[in-house]
């Protein structure tokens, strides 16, 4: 499961978002050496961490951060188009627009990278799959971003077709290029297949979930159980709560949430009244 964190549920994720900014400092400033980034109280923050930013975070069972990705609409501002326009080749489609989101600050934590065994390496694609699910629902057709060319062989070998949008250029710490991912249902299906997952991966936790299940770890447990296919032997599953979580997971109309929030109130009509 990947947690989708928007301005609507950000208040539920205080410590987790702090951990994300701290991890970004470790990755970007300390590991990559991008010393010109702004560090506030030990966490890396930039202009694009505003109310419109959407964070996709993955946690282990104890809610320790494992993977993170930031998305942001580009109809107002775009890092690639505004600050790194020299990375865009002449004749390319505009990199800002109502149907374009910018993806940035992708990271995995050191603790996650040190893990061995099944599932290793899949978390990054879970984050991308969740990003694609969310984007497709919002009629987004492209992700744009920037990549360090040292990582490009890995990207070319991934199931996600990522194209360069211009010539790579040198920067202080290596070589960087603008990039673009064209979104489609087929691409999402391919990414899900590559990590052996069939269901929805992203989930937007709200206060109703916390009231229902207690805390974020409990919500995550429920959602994961709901996502676990029954055919797998030995998988833990709480049928009643899983059914409810599964229903809420696919509750595109918001009906299940309304029923839940209106519970205990007088019904609109009664038989034999």
């Amino acid at each position: 499961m990947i947690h989708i964190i928007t301005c609507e549920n950000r208040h539920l994720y205080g410590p987790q978002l702090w951990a994300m900014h701290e991890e970004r400092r470790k990755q970007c400033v300390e590991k990559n050496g991008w010393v010109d980034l702004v560090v506030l109280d030990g966490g890396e923050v930039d202009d694009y961490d505003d109310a419109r930013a959407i964070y996709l975070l993955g946690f282990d069972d104890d809610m320790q951060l494992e993977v993170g990705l930031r998305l942001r609409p580009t109809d107002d501002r775009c890092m690639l188009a505004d600050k790194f326009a020299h990375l865009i080749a002449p004749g390319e489609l505009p990199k800002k627009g109502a149907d374009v989101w910018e993806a940035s600050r992708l990271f995995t934590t050191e603790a996650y990278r040190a893990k061995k065994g099944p599932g290793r390496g899949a978390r990054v694609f879970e984050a991308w799959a969740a990003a694609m699910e969310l984007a497709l629902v919002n009629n987004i057709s492209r992700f744009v971003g920037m990549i360090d060319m040292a990582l490009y062989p890995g990207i070319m070998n991934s199931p996600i077709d990522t194209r360069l949008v211009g010539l790579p250029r040198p920067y202080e710490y290596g070589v960087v290029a603008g990039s673009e991912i064209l979104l489609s249902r087929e691409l999402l299906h391919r990414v899900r297949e590559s990590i052996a997952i069939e269901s929805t991966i992203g989930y937007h936790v709200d206060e109703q979930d916390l009231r229902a299940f207690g805390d974020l770890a409990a919500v995550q447990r429920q959602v994961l159980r709901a996502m676990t296919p029954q055919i797998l032997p030995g998988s833990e599953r709480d049928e009643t709560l899983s059914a409810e979580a599964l229903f809420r997971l696919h509750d595109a109309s918001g009906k299940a949430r309304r029923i839940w929030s209106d519970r205990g109130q007088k019904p609109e009509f009664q038989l034999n009244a």
Partner: protein
Amino acid sequence: MLNSAEQQAWDFLSKAPHYGAPSEVEDHFGRALAAFGYDRFAATLVNAERYGKEPPALSRQDFDAWDSRYWGERYVVHDPCVKLLLKSSKSFAWSDAKPLGDQRAHAMWGEASEFGMNDGYVVRVFGPAGHEVLIRMSTAANTPDIDPADRAVVESLATVFGTIMLKHWELQDDNPDYGVISERQAQCLYWASRGKTDWEIGAILELSPRTVHHHIEAAKKRLGVVKRQEAVMKAGELGLLKAS
């Protein structure tokens, strides 16, 4: 606006993932590289012996004579480029390595000059399954102060080239005309049937995840199905799944 060399490079970088045959990739890479003055290149899978195979040249253009001399004279012992390779995974120009060399290395550079190789560039590409490709490029021109922007482009060209040639090398092991599905396709489907992800299958079979994906997609086409699970079931019904 891009200058003509940059335009050539952009053509290669934007189209390279869609080229079909390795010869087509080589051809376009050679042209893009030549626009920056590099007329010879070689891509070698340097750690292939760990897979029980000779270190194969994935691609080469006019590098044979110099390689023969290099190994004949055992220059590898004195070559300062080897020191740099052992020290860091970063790309470097011959001009970066030259100050680190001894007298024999000095003689080696002199001989390289006689072969029409006055400067060069070395790029390393690391495949996800642990493969390492070394791309060497050389030029007859003496260009100690290559423009950093050009250097970044040359490095990127080599990175993309090495990655694609490695993928072709991984695929060539497979015989697509063997049976209903190929041996590699059967292996990938077997591990997919055990619930493994592309990354995990790649780790088991020492392939990149993208190559695993390629094999499974090819198997789906051959079995006439749309979904991976359908391919697994059909291959299972036909008794085609095999671990190794």
